[in-house]
C-alpha cells in the first residue's frame, strides 16, 4: 500500500486500512472486538507491514468479523477451521503473512485439535484469540474459557465445566510466542500484538475482552461495558506479580503477560526434504508390494 506523502491529520491514520463501505460495523455497543481491530491496525502501521501481502483468516463468531472491516484478503465463515486454512496458505505461499482472528470457541472448542497441532508444528502464523468467555454470536452459551460456575444460556444453574488455560495449553503444545493481555490495558495489548506480528513461528495472543450483551448480562449481572472492563481488570494479575503468589491467591484470576518467546524452525510441510531420504517411484511400489502393503488395515 502506497504511503500518502501528505496525510490529512484530521483523519485517523488507520482509516486507510478500513473498508468504509462496510460501515456501520456489526459489533454490539461496547464490544471489545473494535479495540482489538484498532490494536491490530496500529501494529501493522507501526511496523510498516505491507497489508497487501497479508491474509487474514477468520472462522465464525464475533471475532471472526474483525477482518471483514479491513482492506485485506480474508477467508471467512467455516467454524473452527482457521488454522487448517492458514496451514494451506502458509505452506503453499510462504511469502504471504497470515494472521488468524478467532474467538475462544472457534480457537479451542471446535478448533482445539488444529490449535494444538499448529503449536506442535510451529506453523508460522499469528493467532489473535479474543476471549470474551462465551459463545457470543449464537446468543451467549458456555464456552471452553467460561469461568466455572458462570450462568450462561446453556448453563442456567451455573457452569459445571472447568475452563481451559489457553496460554498454558499453547505453551505446552509448542507455540513459540504466547502472551495474554486484555482490552482494559490498551498499551500492553498493542505491545503484545505488535510483538506477535514480528514473531516468526506460531504466536498466540489471548485478549481478554468484554461481551456486554451476553456474558456481561447473564454471568456478571451487568450489560455495562465499563463495569465489565473493571471486572476484567480485577481478575488480571501481571505475570511478575503472579510468580510470587500462591495457587489459592490465584484462584479465579488470569495471569497476563508473556509466557514464552522462543525460536524453533517453522513448519514447511510434513515431508522432510533431504536428499538422502529421496526415493524413486519403483521403491514406492516395492515398499507397498513387499510386505507393508499386504498387511495394513
Amino acid at each position, binding site marked *: 500500500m502506497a504511503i500518502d506523502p501528505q496525510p490529512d491529520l484530521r483523519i485517523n491514520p488507520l482509516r486507510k486500512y478500513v473498508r468504509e463501505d462496510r460501515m456501520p460495523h456489526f459489533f454490539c455497543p461496547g464490544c471489545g472486538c473494535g479495540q482489538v481491530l484498532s490494536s491490530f491496525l496500529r501494529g501493522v502501521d507501526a511496523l510498516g507491514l505491507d497489508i497487501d501481502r497479508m491474509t487474514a483468516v477468520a472462522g465464525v463468531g464475533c471475532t471472526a468479523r474483525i477482518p471483514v472491516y479491513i482492506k485485506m484478503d480474508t477467508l471467512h465463515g467455516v467454524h473452527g477451521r482457521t488454522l487448517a486454512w492458514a496451514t494451506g496458505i502458509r505452506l503453499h505461499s510462504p511469502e504471504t503473512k497470515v494472521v488468524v482472528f478467532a474467538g475462544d470457541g472457534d480457537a479451542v472448542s471446535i478448533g482445539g485439535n488444529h490449535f494444538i497441532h499448529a503449536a506442535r508444528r510451529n506453523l508460522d502464523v499469528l493467532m489473535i484469540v479474543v476471549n470474551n468467555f462465551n459463545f457470543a454470536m449464537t446468543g451467549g452459551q458456555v464456552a471452553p474459557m467460561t469461568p466455572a460456575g458462570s450462568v450462561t444460556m446453556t448453563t442456567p444453574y451455573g457452569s459445571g465445566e472447568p475452563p481451559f488455560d489457553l496460554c498454558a495449553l499453547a505453551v505446552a503444545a509448542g507455540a513459540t510466542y504466547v502472551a495474554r493481555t486484555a482490552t482494559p490495558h490498551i498499551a500492553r495489548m498493542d505491545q503484545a500484538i505488535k510483538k506477535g506480528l514480528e514473531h516468526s513461528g506460531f504466536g498466540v495472543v489471548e485478549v481478554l475482552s468484554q461481551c456486554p450483551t451476553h456474558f456481561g448480562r447473564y454471568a456478571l449481572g451487568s450489560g455495562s461495558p465499563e463495569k465489565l472492563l473493571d471486572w476484567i481488570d480485577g481478575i488480571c494479575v501481571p505475570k511478575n506479580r503472579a510468580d510470587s503468589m500462591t495457587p489459592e491467591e490465584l484462584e479465579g484470576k488470569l495471569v497476563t503477560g508473556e509466557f514464552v518467546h522462543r525460536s524453533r524452525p517453522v513448519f514447511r510441510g510434513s515431508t522432510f526434504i533431504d536428499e538422502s531420504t529421496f526415493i524413486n517411484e*519403483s*521403491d514406492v*511400489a*516395492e515398499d507397498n*508390494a*513387499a*510386505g507393508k*502393503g*499386504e*498387511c*495394513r*488395515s
Partner: protein
Amino acid sequence: MRTTSIRFSGFGGQGIILSAVVLGDALVIQRGLYAAQTQSYGSEARGGQCQSELMVSDKPILTPIRAFNDILVSMFQTALDSYIGSLRRDGTLFVDSGLVGDLGRVPPETARHEVPATETAIALGNKMVANMVMLGYFAGVTEMLNLEQLDAALAENVRERFLDLNKKAIRAGFDLSRDSETNSRTNAGTNNGANGGRR
C-alpha cells in the same frame, strides 16, 4: 491366449502379493500382455490369511476376478484349505511341500506340483525368498515367461540390496522345475492351466 486366472495364497509376510506383482509386471511390461492383480489380506500387521489374484490375457481384462481359478499357488496349509475349492478341478496346483502336508482335498484330476520352496530358500540363506523359488518353478512349468523377463520385473519391484538373492531364488526354483522327477510329483499335463483357461 485365453484369459488365465492365477491365485497366490499363503500368510501375511510370505511375499504372496509381491509374487503376483512381479509376475504381473513381467507379463505386462516384458511381454506386452494385459494383467489385473487384486488382493485381500487380514488386518494383522503380520500373519493372517493373504491372497492375490492375477488375471492375464492378450486383450484388456474386464471383470478382474473369477469364480474359479485356473492355477492356485498355496504357500501354507490353511491357504490351500481356503482356496482349493475355487480351483478348477482340472486346474494346476503349486504347493510349498514343506508347509503343505495334507493334499487330501485336492481332486485327482488337478495337476499338482509339490515344490520345496521354503526349504530351498533356507538353503540359499533366507527363507523370505521362498516366494521367488516358487515363482521360478512356476515360470519353468507354465513357460509364461523366461528368466530374463522375471529378472527385469524383479529389478522394478525389489530393493537393490536384495536383488541378487531374489534372482538366485528364481533360478533355483526354475532348476527344480526342470528336474521335477525328483523334486516334485506331477500327475497331469503341466500347461493346461496356463493355456486352457475357461471363461
